[in-house]
């Protein structure tokens, strides 16, 4: 296939580009975005993506709330977020234009499909007049107006497609065009089309034709005044794949289970944006994964607790309201001291809130949202690929300390993608698990002197018959016990055990100078935006550093000391300052909370600006 080499003299080299595809839910924007991602990944770019689709399954065609977007940043450098304002906006209809234009960079490339700008389209998007008629548009942006509908219909002519079928191919036409502009080869997508439509030759042909037609339009017409290349990034050597947060969690869980040689039992109830974890895990049947779609979230977690009792690795996952529903059973897992991993893919709240949007507002609930003194370790993943590592870590904690563990991710991580370097098998450390089998002197609530974990004794083991449950139990024997001092002791032991997990953390790392004026402290998915901001600040010579906490509870023992090395601590969070609150109460230091609760992630620029303001 034709594919311009970056050395082509007419091609300008860029460090990176941010594209946003936006169209109607039916326009296939997610698909288009994913194809551009795969192609760029294969080309060696570093990447980050941010899909943003409507809550409705199929919103009415052309409506404002039915707009589906996919933002993608591809770069020749190491990047951490899908970018702030896009350089390029592809708007397939008026609604997409209206919802997305405000984000486009001044002077950015704006490609508009004029084929969908008739009166009724404009009305659905609540435009009084055709915005394309506004001369300011062409003045403010590099405007490319094209009737992609017409072009597509022509491209696939003769294949016997209905008009409607033909129009379905227009996203490939747009994609082909952008491949030309950014000097990407068509192969990856061609292969994909081959595979996907192999059984339906007519559609296979049509999509291929549309893709190539788009490319040709770029090449032959004089629509585009420039052509660009983004050379490969200097990524660490290794095998890479693209990964999103949810499948990374699923893979991490399976890897964790393999490392501790326990079968996974995943008991859950579908909920956006956590359902995909179930979907991925339910395909791993040949890894011995049991998935159980329960009648509700309570049954999901309770079945996982039951499975853990039998010696399986009980896992449950959910979002938003589903997490609230699990509160009671989390208490049971704490009291029975069984291993359990609970994945919470946070979404916009409170209540049903914004189901398809991202947020980090379940932190305090994770730490304290249960009746009684009910300590549970909490950790968070910081990027889509990191979800894999965080999941393994959660498994390790759960089985080593015989405790439920809450793993926080969020909608942004769940659906965002990045190239991810596959770990070498040797890098993965085994997680030793020893089931108790000796009936001699067996005591269900005796403890390991180091971890304070109680022994794990499976039903089916002769001589180890014992009873557990949610009532307070006697130290060592585990018999039900209402003695006041025993209760105090057990509350203390459960707390000590969880707080002791901090002994197993690696030292807290700081990116940037070891001490200075401002430390940007973050957790979870803000990692990329903070890193982007701190990189730029450091480039500008500012005395700024980043510290990103994986372990939210218990906090790392050296964190207080790290914080005190900086004059100010800035905490950007997609909530109203929850980590800030924990930090204040733990270390009694003033921090600068930077809350953002918009259902969308921080941009690096926002954080950089705030850092600059802080520096005065």
């Amino acid at each position: 296939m034709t594919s311009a080499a970056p050395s082509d003299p007419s091609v300008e080299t860029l460090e990176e580009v941010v594209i946003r595809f936006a169209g109607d839910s039916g326009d296939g924007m997610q698909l288009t975005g994913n194809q551009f991602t795969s192609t760029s990944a294969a080309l060696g770019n570093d990447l980050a993506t941010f899909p943003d689709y409507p809550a409705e399954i199929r919103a009415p065609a052309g409506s404002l709330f039915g707009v589906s977007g996919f933002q993608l940043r591809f770069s020749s450098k190491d990047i951490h977020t899908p970018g702030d304002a896009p350089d390029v906006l592809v708007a397939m209809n008026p609604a997409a234009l209206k919802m997305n234009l405000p984000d486009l960079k001044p002077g950015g490339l704006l490609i508009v499909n004029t084929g969908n700008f008739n009166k009724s389209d404009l009305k659905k998007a609540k435009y009084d007049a055709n915005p394309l008629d506004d001369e300011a548009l062409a003045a403010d942006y590099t405007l490319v107006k094209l009737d992609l509908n017409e072009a597509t219909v022509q491209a696939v002519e003769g294949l016997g497609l209905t008009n409607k079928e033909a129009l379905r191919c227009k996203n490939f036409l747009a994609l082909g065009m952008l491949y030309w502009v950014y000097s990407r080869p068509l192969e990856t997508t061609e292969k994909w089309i081959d595979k996907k439509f192999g059984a339906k030759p007519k559609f296979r042909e049509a999509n291929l034709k549309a893709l190539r037609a788009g490319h040709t339009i770029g090449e032959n017409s004089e629509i585009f005044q420039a052509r660009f290349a983004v050379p490969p990034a200097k990524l660490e050597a290794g095998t890479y794949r693209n990964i999103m947060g949810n499948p990374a969690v699923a893979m991490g869980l399976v890897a964790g289970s393999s490392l501790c040689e326990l079968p996974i039992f995943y008991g859950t109830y579908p909920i956006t944006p956590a359902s995909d974890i179930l979907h991925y895990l339910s395909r791993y049947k040949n890894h011995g994964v049991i998935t159980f779609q329960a009648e509700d979230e309570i049954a999901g977690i309770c079945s996982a607790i039951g499975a853990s009792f039998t010696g399986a690795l009980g896992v449950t996952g959910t979002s938003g309201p589903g997490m609230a529903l699990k509160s009671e059973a989390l208490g049971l897992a704490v009291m029975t001291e069984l291993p359990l991993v609970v994945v919470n893919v946070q979404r916009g709240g409170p209540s049903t809130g914004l189901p398809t949007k991202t947020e980090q507002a379940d932190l305090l609930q994770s730490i304290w949202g249960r009746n009684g003194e009910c300590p549970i370790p909490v950790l968070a993943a910081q990027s889509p690929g990191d979800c894999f590592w965080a999941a393994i870590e959660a498994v390790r904690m759960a089985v080593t300390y015989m405790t439920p563990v809450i793993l926080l991710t969020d909608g942004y991580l769940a659906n965002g993608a990045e190239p991810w370097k596959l770990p070498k098998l040797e890098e993965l450390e085994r997680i030793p698990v020893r089931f108790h089998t000796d009936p001699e002197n067996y005591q269900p609530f005796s403890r390991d002197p180091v971890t304070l974990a109680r022994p794990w004794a499976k039903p089916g083991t002769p001589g180890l018959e014992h009873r557990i449950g949610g009532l307070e139990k006697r130290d060592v024997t585990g018999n039900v016990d209402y003695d006041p001092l025993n209760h105090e002791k057990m509350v203390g032991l459960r707390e000590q055990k969880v707080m002791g997990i901090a002994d197993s953390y690696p030292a807290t790392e700081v990116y940037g100078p070891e001490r200075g004026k401002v430390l940007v402290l973050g957790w979870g998915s803000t990692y990329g935006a903070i890193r982007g901001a701190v990189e730029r600040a450091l480039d500008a010579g500012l005395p700024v550093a980043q510290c990103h906490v994986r372990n939210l509870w218990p906090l790392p023992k050296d964190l207080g000391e790290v914080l005190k090395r900086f004059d100010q601590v800035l905490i950007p969070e997609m909530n109203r300052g929850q980590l800030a609150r924990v930090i204040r109460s733990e270390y009694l230091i003033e921090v600068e909370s930077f809350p953002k609760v918009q259902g969308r992630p921080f941009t690096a620029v926002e954080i950089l600006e705030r850092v600059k303001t802080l520096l005065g």
Partner: protein
Amino acid sequence: MTTVEAPSYKKADFVSDQEVRWCPGCGDYAILNAVQQTFAKLGVSKEKFVCVSGIGCSSRFPYYADTFGFHSIHGRAPAVATGIKVANPDLSVWIITGDGDALSIGGNHIIHAMRRNLDMNVLLFNNRIYGLTKGQYSPTSEINKKTPSSPFGSVDQPFNPIALALGSGATFVARSVDTQAAHLKGVLEAAHAHKGFSFVEILQNCVIYNNKAFEHITDKTIRHDRQVDLQAGKPMVYGKDLDKGLKILPDSIINCPPEEASTWRTDGPAGANAFRICQASESGEIPVPFGILRQVNRPVFETDLHLQIQATTQNLGQGTLENLLMEGETWQVS
């Protein structure tokens, strides 16, 4: 359950070292006793028994049986038990629950467990009252019941647990009573033998908060006339001398001479006769049905689930860490 050699046990082998803490005279004692005796007879290795309960007087049961036990949280025993059974189908799982635990807060889990048809057993201790929380009416209390939470009488229609079980698609539905030990043990054995979900309602006397709630059915002097013990393939006869019969008509069930009695089927195409007879009013013409109301074979959830895992593993090969990581499109950077 596969047991290599049938172990031989005595009841005492299933008595734990915990003091039993029910009220003196509580019907739970008799049930505990019957269950312990039954466990000893089943030929299942002791370490394979798991008793799972929710919260309630009845739900303290696991502490007293020397088996693996899980005294979980209110209403959730079927969910916990589902995880246990699915994760290890080799265990013999017994859910012990009360009318509040199973039918009030836990109603949803139990109907779902019944529909899924896991091979486990539920013993519902129905005393028609919340014992542990001191005597409020339950979803099986008769209407107009005066309790601390209904001082002027309750206005709630009760559930018929058998009807609910049938409506949920349970494959084994039976009823017995605390005071009739031989009958109870027979039903427990049948429940164990059934491959699928066995729902056993056990009428149980709460001496403190609902004493003699079942006297009108179970009192020795009248019980032969107020109960009919349904047995598959046997005529529907009752009375001290089996001198009374029941006949099934298209629209109803009526009394008849024993010679004319219909033959009881537990496996009718839709369980409709069980549905009809279970609603025979406790003060009505027709006696209250005991024994096995329904028993049919249907695929067992955890069996199918594990078969699917096996089949997939055969098709795709055993998953390894390596092929987990290498799945999907990858590329090299060097």
